[in-house]
């Protein structure tokens, strides 16, 4: 058993699975909706049932010249208002792969820092679920 190196993996965007380069961190959160039922008259217990599943996440890195092709797709998708496929692979070869067939990039933040280059970060969320293999 060994720890997985953080640099082993990939984050890809679009139908062509273009790798998004120069990312220092990617984070994904899978949510399971939990609904409460109860208490009822004469029954004080609270039951819980599973609702829908969802996935969302964020990534951050820095911009380079020329612009990384994957980062360019992130920018063009939020700018164009188009949904896009996102894939996160963990490990090399991939031990776990999360695929969001239809993702919405909801936020992109970038800008120069005089002594640190140009950081870029973005948030995304699934529309219609995900697959985890």
């Amino acid at each position, binding site marked *: 058993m060994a720890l997985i190196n953080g640099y082993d993996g990939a984050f890809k965007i679009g139908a062509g699975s273009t790798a998004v380069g120069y990312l220092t961190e990617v984070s994904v959160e899978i949510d399971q909706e939990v609904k409460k039922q109860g208490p009822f008259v004469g029954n004080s217990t609270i039951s819980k049932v599973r609702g829908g599943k969802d996935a969302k996440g964020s990534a951050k*890195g820095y911009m380079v010249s020329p612009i990384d092709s994957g980062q360019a797709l992130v920018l063009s998708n939020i700018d164009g208002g188009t949904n896009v496929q996102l894939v996160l692979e963990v490990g090399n070869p991939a031990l776990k792969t999360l695929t969001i067939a239809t993702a919405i990039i909801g936020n992109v933040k970038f800008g120069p820092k005089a002594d640190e280059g140009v950081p870029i970060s973005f948030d995304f969320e699934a529309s219609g679920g995900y697959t985890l293999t």
Partner: protein
Amino acid sequence: MSVAPITDAEAVLATAIRNALAAVAGTYQGRPQAYYQLAPQGAPLPLVVYQVQSGVIAARERVGARGATADVTIRALATDATAARALLALTVAPMAALAFAGYTVTATYLRSPIIPPDAAGTYQSAHLWRVDIERA
């Protein structure tokens, strides 16, 4: 992109800088007077010596890729301060055009350490650069 470490980063860095500075450093015994780490005994001034600061080339890690980075000091040595500064000034443009096949090598100016002359009357002028190496 590759996650394999750039284990030949020292050779890439040393060769790219020597080739870039060769045109401005003159020659001695058939070699450009842009020396990595140490100038040979008896090499005439002016000359350029460059070395990795703190002796460290570090991996630059990202998701799905690894590069390398090092801080490099470029020192111009001459018999007077003006000549040292003039030679150092000539090294600036070549540092913006570092090249090595298969890699992208970029230098970013960081600062200029001040080095006092030694007892033998050798004056130095220096720039510190951050050199980043990525697979092309």
